[in-house]
């Protein structure tokens, strides 16, 4: 089994469009949408959410007013300003609470509990292609620790094994924090989708620094490549210096927006134009994964 993780650092480069297009041309595969904070794959792949599972992550403190003696010790020690007081009534500010449990340890009358929180759902779905999509939805303000991403990846591996599938395509998370780290862990190859803007280059460099720590091979697609010839050149230099293979440069094309507006992948929207291109990209990826 081989795992390809597609990330971008910066939003709006076309990462999800590329991932969806690859889903259409890749054989023997399934997709894991690890962009759990703002999952979008489903808008193109139209999953049926056949299996849904509640997701629990992180603890929050709760004060039982029946036991609480209003000593205020919890408020004194809380570093996150998460204990509120109205008259002699103490309660936990749900959003501010980090779930560290210090108040739980210190309460002299054991009035505080630390239940694990239901912060989202994970799904195993069938897509309109007849393939499997593993995805999830994280609730508002949830602690995005990477655990939900790990769950999506774990389910993806399990289903791939059950179905005898060989390729797992992962639509990764943006940024450089926990969810990206979780997206990258276990990858065989990383595909960076970038764009020739100063922001795009800067974010690519930052996310590459993170990827280097995992010693995973990287390849790159420059999207909207003709938007800025100078920066495209800078990106090419960067890729060459760092040993990241440049797969292709895709010129700026309104099809990217038009296709998703129709709820379609590029390959569905204009097959004559995009199918050969993405088939070629997929062949290049398979070669790298050997």
């Amino acid at each position, binding site marked *: 089994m081989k795992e390809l993780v597609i990330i971008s650092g910066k939003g709006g480069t076309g990462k999800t469009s590329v991932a969806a297009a690859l889903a259409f041309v890749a054989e023997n595969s399934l997709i894991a949408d690890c962009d759990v904070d703002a999952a979008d794959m489903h808008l193109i792949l139209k999953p049926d959410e056949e299996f849904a599972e509640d997701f629990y992550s*992180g603890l929050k403190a709760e004060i039982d007013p029946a036991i609480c003696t209003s000593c205020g010790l919890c408020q004194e020690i809380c570093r996150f300003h998460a204990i509120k007081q109205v008259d002699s009534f103490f309660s936990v500010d749900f959003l501010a609470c980090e*779930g560290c449990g210090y108040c739980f340890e210190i309460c002299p009358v054991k009035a505080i509990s630390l239940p694990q929180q239901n912060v989202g759902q994970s799904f195993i779905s069938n897509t309109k292609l007849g393939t499997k999509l593993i995805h999830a939805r994280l609730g508002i303000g949830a*602690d995005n*620790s990477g*655990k939900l991403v*790990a769950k999506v990846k774990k389910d993806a591996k399990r289903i791939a*094994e059950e179905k005898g599938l060989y390729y797992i395509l992962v639509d990764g998370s943006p940024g450089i924090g926990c969810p990206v780290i979780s997206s990258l862990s*276990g990858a065989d190859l990383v595909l960076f989708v970038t764009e020739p803007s100063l922001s795009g280059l800067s974010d690519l460099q930052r996310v590459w620094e993170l990827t280097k720590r995992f010693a995973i091979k990287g390849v790159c697609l420059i999207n909207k490549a003709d938007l800025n010839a100078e920066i495209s050149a800078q990106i090419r230099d960067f890729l060459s210096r760092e040993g990241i293979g440049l797969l292709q440069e895709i010129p700026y094309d309104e099809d990217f927006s038009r296709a998703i507006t129709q709820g379609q992948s590029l390959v569905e929207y204009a097959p004559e134009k995009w199918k050969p291109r993405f088939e070629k990209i997929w062949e290049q990826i398979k070669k790298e994964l050997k």
Partner: protein
Amino acid sequence: MIIVFTSKGTDWDAKMDPRFGRTDYLLFYNEETKELSHIDNREVANQAHGVGPKTAQILFERGAKVLITGNGPGGNAAQALKQMELKIFVGAGEMTVREAYEAYQRGQLAQGA
């Protein structure tokens, strides 16, 4: 010597689990007594943070000296394991536990950092 495997089941024919921190089970094999025991790690996997290091602590408490796994531990867990002078062997993610042990004995597994 005590060898620990990350696995999806509790016996020699179980498939290996490629992950470390969130592995389903930890299988301990005592080479002297030939005893195979296991711990269900899924409760640890259920935690949000620091799962790798927590799992490493369990290995420590059981006196494991060799870890055989798939991908290898992530950064935080690796730090913890280094502290323990434990040898890590990777690349067994697709094998059964038995196959992984045999591969280890034949020197066919790569040593992790």
